[in-house]
């Protein structure tokens, strides 16, 4: 062990050394994945076309440096999600709460992910986006529609989860109004 290794060990002991993680943004097309990425990286909103190839950026949340992978959400690319999530530290799953027609489709995709062996113990942050739009589902409606009520764990960071429990939380947000997702990320960073 060289000097630098020792140095970094001390830093991490003091909690100053940044943790690193890998995040994947998943969800149906038009859920707001790239808009979220653009907001986190460039702090701006833009009219962006649906994502084709996977996009990668780096985002800092608290003391953690995340590599984030934003994947297209339309049907043909969903089968390729697994190539990106198998080695991820956590999943951010976005849901368009204003699109009542497709909430069922979103639930199906989410449960496919939840049952994947690769993601068995990884934290899931589920963001219900577009609450600024009229007709958006309320949080209880969304939790019901997504069928995640029984899977949700505590928001309290001090409570230790029992061994083998997957951290999972639901936060509502409006990305274009810069509201809601920050709390979600703070919650998630405890489990990375």
């Amino acid at each position: 062990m060289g000097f630098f290794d020792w140095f970094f060990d001390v830093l991490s002991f003091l909690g100053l050394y940044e943790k690193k993680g890998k995040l994947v943004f998943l969800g149906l097309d038009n859920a707001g994945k790239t808009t979220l990425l653009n907001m986190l990286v460039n702090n701006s909103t833009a009219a962006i076309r649906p994502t084709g190839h996977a996009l990668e950026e780096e985002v800092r949340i608290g003391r953690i440096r995340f590599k984030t992978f934003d994947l297209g959400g339309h049907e043909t690319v969903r089968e390729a999600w697994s190539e990106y999530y198998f080695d991820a530290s956590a999943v951010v799953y976005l849901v368009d709460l204003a699109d009542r027609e497709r909430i069922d489709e979103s639930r199906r995709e989410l449960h496919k992910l939840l049952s994947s062996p690769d993601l068995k113990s990884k934290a899931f942050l589920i963001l219900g986006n577009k609450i600024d739009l009229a007709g958006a589902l309320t949080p209880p409606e969304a939790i019901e529609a997504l069928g995640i009520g029984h899977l949700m764990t505590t928001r309290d960071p001090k409570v230790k989860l029992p061994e083998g429990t997957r951290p999972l939380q639901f936060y509502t947000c409006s990305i274009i109004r810069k509201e809601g997702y920050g709390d979600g990320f703070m919650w998630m960073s405890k489990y990375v």
Partner: protein
Amino acid sequence: MSSSSVEHFKRIESSNGLRCTWNVWPSSKQAAVKLSVPVSMLYSPMKQISGLKKLPYKPVMCPRCRSVLNPYCSINFERKTYLCPFCENQAALPASYNAISTECLPAEVMPQFTTVEYVRESSEVEKTPPIFMFVLDITLREEQLQSAIDGIQYVISTLPEYVRVGLITFGTVVQVHELTHDQIPRVYMFRGHKAFSEKDIEDYLELKTTNSVKNNQKFVMSMKDCALTLSELLDTLKHDPWPVTKHKRPYRCTGAALNVASSVLAALYPLSGSRIVLITGGPCTLGPGQVVSTDLEQKMRSQRNIEKKEPEAKLVAGATKFYTELARRMARSFQCTDIFCGSVHQCGLLEMRPLLDLTGGRTLIAEACTDDSFRFSFEKLFEGVVVDSSVGMAEMAGTEVDEPVVEGEFKLGFSGVVEMSLPKDVLVSGCIGQCATLPVVSTSKHMVSTATVGQGGTNRWRMCGLDSESTLAFILEVGSKEPSMPAQGAVKVVQFRTVYTTSTGDKVMRVSTVGFPWVDGSQKQVIGSGFDEDAAAVVMSRIASWRCDMGTPEREVTRSIDRTLIRLVSLFAQYQRGMPHTFALTEGFQQFPQTMFHFRRSPFMQTFGYSPDEVAFSRHLILRECLKNSMIMIRPTLTAFRTDDPAGSQVILDSTSAKNDSVLLLDCFTEIIVWVGEAVVSWREQGIHEQPDYANVKQMLEQPLEDAQRMILERFPAPRLYTSDQGKSQQRRLLARLNPSATHKRGEAAGGEIIITDDVNLQKFLDSLKHAATEQ
């Protein structure tokens, strides 16, 4: 541009395939630099021209400068000599021109034939029919591989007998397939980890053994001799047998396979034009040209990895270098590479792009080989191999024949070389387009500028593969350093000579000679009247795109576009200094700022949300497409269909055009979006369009889809069609390209869609331009 000027530009284009940013040239260099948009030409050497003169004899070339006799040569009918407008040499006409007089002129000196083609009917022995070498990735997943094989099966069923073909497959290893039918076809394998030398490949495949002539003819054979064998072989092709373990990519030695393909062709047909057609379903993971490891934990490099020089991008430089060197080698033997990618992931097009740009290849990124856009594009490429009947007719009649032109017909050319002749005080800085430089000959050195842009330092370029849409941009340096007053009516003449082989194997030389008025630099109005804003937009986009390719950050390039724009309008607009409200753009310049606004927002410059491969794909396209197609890419065409106008009319590219009672068709060249407004959706759901009284509603729903279908069949690459009702997911493809005149922050404008963005809109952009220009 005034409408008469536009007509003039279009006339030059339709009869020569040439558009120029400035059509009246200043005689002083200083004045030319002040124009800020460089004097440049967009030239399409294989553009289909109606009424094109085809001459069945040899061109008369100036013995001193190699330029060809043209309408700008002044002929001395007494002495049978002519004055070459380029080198000002008096040259004698050949004896066959003895009968020349003012009444009896050969076509090539008639003023209406500024572009002619000299067609030499080759004898069967001389003919060099085109070669297609298929290079197929057999790691493609089952249904994908089958679809790719079906695609090849289909095109070989359409190819003429004389076309020659070969087949190489690759995965963990490279396999070269024998096409002989008299025995069980054998396969020769090369390990994928290494780029074998041409010599090694020659020796191993015994390509140059003298004792067996047959030996070297078994890998590339004419369709006549191998159609059946090849078809059977394709039917029995198997997926790569090497197992792919969990969380791994397959071994895919794309670079090694292309290297073998090139070496085989170079050894067997060093001088015949050929196309290497690559079909792949993922990145190269093994051997030369590798862009990523087989380990899925290592992701494909992203824009960010490349910009920040992160370790994930460590293979980019090496792979790009390998493909660039390979492309140069291919160019030397007139080989051209086409790349068809069928994958939801990146396939490494960024690194492989030199193969396209230096050889004239075509490409497509599709999500799968089973996609319509993949199938249509693949078939379209081979439609370019057409049997040219007019040449045969010329032989029979013994006279020149006008070529019948089918609108939108797509043709392929092989082994092209473009050469330019320029007069005194006009230099070429370089060419931005799909080409590779050829060394300049000593007699042409005086027309080559030392300040290079794009592929410079010469007046000759190779175009190994070319087609009816291939377009080169030549950046010129006009004007003399010393002030000189040009004579009244002075003209500067430019000549392009393109030699290429047609898909029937005949040699053609197309000669285009066009003159441009040469005036004193102070004649601002005259010079301004010759401004072609569409040509200028395309040239500016190519220069910008090329600078980004060379590594200049997009932000910086965007700023330099703004500076050019400010300088240009401050020179040609009407205004009083310091008073922005007095600012008015003069005729001929009114569209240009808007077009550049849309270019700044286009995927060429705003790369957030695009992968390196996607950016490489669009920049490759703007580098090669004709003016019309390039304009669609820069400023997509938006057509609105309404109850009172169900046949559709073009509307402005603005959020206010997205009205809920209309259907929109947005054409972005590679993508077409049909968008249906909410009101129309409800009519459709109520079935109103099926009622006889509402034929207009039916038409406004069907017409855009019909128009889209036509574009899909006509274009290469076949565009992808998306349909979206208002408010649905895919409408983002439309909204991303509209000028956001109403946004979520600024509230609702007069109808139309509200766009969620922080971007600057056109109005704000033009206001800033006025301020900046009037302050100059």
